[in-house]
């Protein structure tokens, strides 16, 4: 029999992390690649994300570094003889590239097909007008919109679809925003100036859905057309605030069954008409007055919504989708956790907890940025949490936010706000809005007033009001066991209670445990809401009767995760934690992870042996340490939570990595990467740093190398602690001078690991845990790669300053030569 050449599959990555895209794409890539590689598929993965973890995985995949442009892709397709493109990992980037490839006819020429989403669907999704047509065909309404050339037709349209409408001049002479017109009078007034600035004398008119509820449905469909709803999630903020900047609750909290089912049906119908094989997230605007909906977005790929859906429900979306893409039907796929029955991949997840995703901003570092929340996403990361009530889940989410990213909120004393300032925030939502809403309730605003002003459903204000009431009880009753118990039940943290009691948090903890006997209990996260016995490895805390978490047996280590992505360490921190976990397992430890970023790489199923999806606070860490009694605890570098725990006598192995930044070497010329282990120094390589602070591995003559080596080895004698270091060098005429030696910066680690062909994160983990490491020398990858940091200035609409510090980077990308 003739051997059939195995089809070559190209997976397009999403590129570097930035505002709007965290590590969810990479997390999906890891799982897809694992499943595909295990099935023996011939894989290629292309990205320009310098923090990509894929090259470090031991899976059989060709890692290609290239610009994510249509021209580079065409070259890749030709050179590698690609047969199939998988565009569902790389977010909108991959979808747009596929559309361009299709337009260029190269797919037809090379006889390449796409997997998961057809080129027709990609074409429709990239062309709103076509998409509207498709949706109209299945009677799924999209937001009515038109282009008019006269005031009369604008008025006619507005009357037909109903006020308010949004108008925007087309091909405007000046930068213009969309203007909201609430009635005919306003519209007439606004039309004239709008026509004036349009060079084509045209205006786009659109029905305004500002103030509608925003709801997200995540569904899965297989090639046979079997499909199910994985999760419905509801935005706290109504339409008008980008859903990436809104707090999100799952399950939906304020939808009637009729509303919910109509959205579920619509999402499934859309997946069907688009012939999706895999995951599809459909976003809706829901009119709170009559329950009618509009489709606002269709994402037939892995995104932050599907990542949250997987975490919230415990349903392994990426693994199931991998199997669908490999040709299995949903009827054939089993979920590994279930202890009874079969065909469980078809079970629609039911939840017996509330999951919350909470955005985190970095405005403390970008003071000039406009903090008002609107349709442009501004958050730089997210946390999530679980609770057994909306109050508890929300409070835990707020506590999950790292103190450095809440600096702006911590600095804010709401009680100092003037009434006018407060009202301004109520009307124009801004980062950290929920703190202002709580303050408004403290000042006696009523639920219905606030619901009216903010268009946020009254349900949430009843919940917030409940928190304010509990807060008042705590203030009035210090060290009262019943009040404490009630407060813990609805999610108050020890530190929060300490603040209200005006004592130290340790005093609260001691009273809680010794006097009040109020203890955290842990519940499993699984997709059947307790209906079936289910083996899960993910837990969250609450304060109820039953504790399901059983202490891990064997040699075990607790890994403190990286929490929300933040500027500075960004996705490199998650990368490092991922590799730390793997190395701990190689060293024979069972890994217990605490983390709370819904997009985290480290939440990939089958990585950590046990996961506590919990806020990284002293209280939670101490509780988990008490629960699990780990042999060791490991954390990256020095940061707030680590020092707080150390202060309380917890022994933590701290990976000597710089979490903040390598010293901002404006006049550095080279960086030498060395290890120092028990007096033995080793030079891994020399990296050139050019004027734009880009890194370029250099190829040097033996003579120069010797010169480097001599200087570097001399410097190593000054390094006393074991670790991996960056030695920063300056060229002074012909002389090399050491300007500083610092532990390797986390944000450089992924790139350096790649170009120097080492697993520095694993190495440093082993050095710290075992006190030793056998250096193996691998050949360097060559001088091909350069890298640069990615900053969020564009998204914030502010100008990037000269010599931007690395501590403000949100991601990192490979640069083409």
């Amino acid at each position: 029999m003739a051997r059939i050449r195995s089809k070559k599959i190209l997976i397009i990555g999403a590129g570097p992390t930035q505002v709007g895209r965290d590590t969810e794409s990479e997390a999906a890539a890891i799982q897809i690649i694992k499943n595909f590689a295990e099935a023996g598929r011939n894989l290629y993965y292309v990205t320009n994300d310098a923090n990509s973890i894929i090259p470090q995985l031991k899976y059989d995949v060709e890692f290609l570094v290239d610009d994510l442009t249509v021209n580079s892709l065409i070259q890749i397709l030709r050179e590698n003889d690609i047969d199939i493109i998988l565009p569902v990992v790389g977010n909108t980037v991959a979808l747009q590239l596929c559309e361009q490839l299709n337009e260029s006819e190269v797919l037809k020429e090379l006889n390449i097909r796409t997997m998961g989403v057809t080129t027709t669907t990609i074409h429709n999704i990239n062309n709103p007008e076509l998409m509207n047509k498709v949706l109209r065909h299945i009677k799924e309404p999209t937001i009515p919109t038109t282009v008019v050339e006269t005031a009369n037709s604008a008025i006619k349209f507005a009357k037909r679809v109903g006020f308010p409408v949004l108008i925007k001049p087309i091909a405007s002479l000046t930068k213009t925003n969309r203007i909201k017109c609430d009635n005919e009078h306003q519209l007439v007034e606004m039309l004239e100036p709008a026509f004036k600035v349009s060079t084509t004398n045209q205006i786009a008119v659109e029905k305004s859905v500002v103030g509608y509820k925003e709801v997200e449905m995540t569904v899965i469909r297989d090639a046979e057309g079997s499909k199910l709803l994985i999760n419905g999630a509801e935005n706290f903020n109504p339409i008008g605030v980008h859903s990436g900047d809104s707090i999100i609750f799952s399950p939906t909290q304020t939808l009637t069954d009729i509303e919910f089912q109509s959205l579920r049906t619509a999402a499934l119908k859309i997946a069907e008409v688009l012939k999706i094989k895999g995951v599809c997230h459909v976003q809706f605007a829901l009119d709170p007055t009559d329950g009618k909906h509009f489709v606002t977005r269709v994402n037939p790929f892995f995104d932050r919504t599907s990542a949250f859906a997987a975490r919230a429900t415990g349903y392994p979306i990426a693994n199931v989708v991998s199997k669908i893409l490999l040709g299995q039907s949903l009827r054939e796929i089993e979920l590994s956790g279930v202890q009874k029955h079969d065909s469980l991949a078809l079970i629609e997840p039911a939840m017996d907890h509330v999951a919350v995703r909470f955005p985190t901003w970095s405005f403390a570092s970008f003071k000039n940025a406009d903090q008002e929340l609107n349709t442009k996403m501004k958050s730089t990361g997210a946390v999530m949490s679980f609770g057994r009530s909306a109050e508890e889940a929300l409070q835990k989410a707020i506590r999950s936010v790292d103190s450095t990213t809440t600096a702006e909120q911590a600095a804010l004393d709401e009680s100092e706000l003037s009434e006018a300032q407060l009202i301004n925030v109520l009307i124009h939502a801004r980062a950290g809005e929920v703190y202002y809403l709580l303050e408004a309730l403290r000042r006696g605003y009523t639920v219905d007033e606030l619901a009216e002003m903010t268009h946020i459903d009254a349900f949430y204000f009843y919940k917030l009001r409940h928190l304010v009431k509990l807060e008042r009880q705590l203030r009035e009753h210090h060290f009262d066991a019943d009040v404490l118990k009630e407060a813990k039940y609805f999610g108050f943290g020890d530190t929060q209670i300490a603040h209200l009691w005006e004592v130290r948090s340790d005093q609260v903890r001691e009273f809680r445990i010794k006097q009040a006997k109020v203890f955290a209990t842990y519940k499993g996260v699984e997709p059947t809401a307790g209906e079936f016995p289910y083996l899960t490895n993910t837990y969250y805390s609450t304060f109820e009767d039953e504790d399901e978490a059983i202490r891990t047996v064997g040699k075990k280590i607790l890994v403190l995760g990286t929490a929300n992505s933040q500027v500075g360490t960004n996705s490199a921190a998650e990368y490092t934690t991922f590799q730390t976990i793997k190395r701990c397992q190689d060293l024979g430890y069972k890994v217990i992870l605490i983390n709370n970023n819904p997009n985290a790489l480290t939440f990939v199923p089958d990585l950590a042996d046990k996961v506590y999806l919990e806020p990284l606070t002293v209280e939670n860490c101490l509780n988990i340490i008490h629960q699990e009694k780990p042999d060791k605890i490991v954390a990256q570098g020095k940061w707030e939570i680590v020092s707080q725990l150390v202060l309380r006598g917890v022994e933590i192995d701290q990976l000597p990595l710089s979490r903040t930044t390598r010293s901002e070497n404006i006049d550095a010329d080279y960086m030498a990467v060395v290890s120092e282990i028990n007096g033995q120094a080793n030079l891994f390589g020399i990296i050139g740093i050019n004027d734009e602070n880009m890194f370029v591995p250099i190829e040097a003559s033996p003579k120069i190398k010797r010169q480097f080596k001599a200087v570097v080895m001399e410097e190593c004698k000054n390094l006393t602690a074991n670790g991996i270091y960056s030695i920063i060098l300056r060229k002074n005429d012909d002389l090399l001078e050491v300007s500083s030696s610092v532990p390797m910066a986390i944000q450089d680690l992924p790139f350096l690991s790649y170009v120097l062909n080492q697993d520095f994160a694993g190495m440093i983990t082993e050095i710290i845990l075992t006190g030793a490491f056998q250096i193996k020398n691998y050949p360097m990858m060559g001088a091909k790669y350069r890298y640069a940091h990615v900053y969020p200035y564009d998204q914030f609409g502010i100008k990037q300053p000269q010599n931007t510090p690395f501590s403000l980077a949100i991601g990192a990308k490979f640069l083409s030569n």
Partner: protein
Amino acid sequence: MADRYLILEDGSVFKGKAFGSRATTFGEVVFNTVMTGYQQVITNQIYHNQIIVFSQPTIGAVGIDRSSYESVDPTCKGVIVRDVAAVSINRRRRLSLDEYLKRQNIPGISGIDTRALIKKLRSTGTIKGSIIDPVNDLEHAFDQLRAIVLTNQQVNQVSTPKAFPNPGNGKNVVVVDLGLKYGILRQLSQRDCNVTVLPYSATADSIFSLDPDGVIISTGPGNPNDLPAQVIEMIQTVQRNIPLFAIGLGHEAFAIANGCSINELSSEHHGSNHPILSVITDEIMYASHGQGFTVDPESVDRNDLIVTHYDLIDRSVQGLRHRDFPAFSVQFFPDSSPGPNEATELFDEFMEMMTTRGGR
């Protein structure tokens, strides 16, 4: 809110807070995993004599909606939940869940570790429970709970005593009320049917005298083996003559009428998350379930009946069709409310059946 206790036959005690009525209540404790539609669940007559535990931790957030009743006088014995939400009253919702349950004299208890309770029920199977005020003598309360005998005449208690019409201009349909869920009437209204609802005691003759195009045997509470023999006989006669669609308890009765035996489930199944395979179209669908009993697949006489639907999770029989007569049945609730609505097309099938068979 006042303290209340939930006690179970097996001796366990859960402490919680009162909502709804403060009456003392007894019933079988069953859990439901739907995530929306608590009102439809609570007002479904299948829960006669039962106390419902919701796995969804927060209910009450959308109050009571005037268009979402599944019966006017709900007969469930209680509601158990982790948390009850307060709501603003508006034109669409004039009542909060709390207020509604007070008016209906149905007690609720919140603040319960419902996940722990559900895991327990999963292993004990359906057991009796009671929601009570704090008492000094818990033993006495347990004695009372153990002594209570729940009626098996549930259909008699929930079925309409008198016939009533639900007029329309289209097909003439008789609905036999074993504990009717209004979703069925809504589906028929949407198809403009002219409906007459008859008590469960309706005879085949009284049905024929209305000259219907089709007959629906409704959902209802309790054990199908406790149904009066005359209901089974009525089905046996009607199915030979008129298109018949049986749902829930009606499906179980239809199965008995055609020689099947019925097994009691070790743990009742209430929720809308199980995939159902439609054998004929080979498609997967979802619908809400509420069953304590199931057709014994071994007992299905394949000469008479075709199994049309399976639950793919537990492989239970979910639908039957008669080979010779225009009659079919489903275990699940095809009318949705609450739950997914893809199974509503079974009502279209019923309409078609009435058109082809009736020829008018």
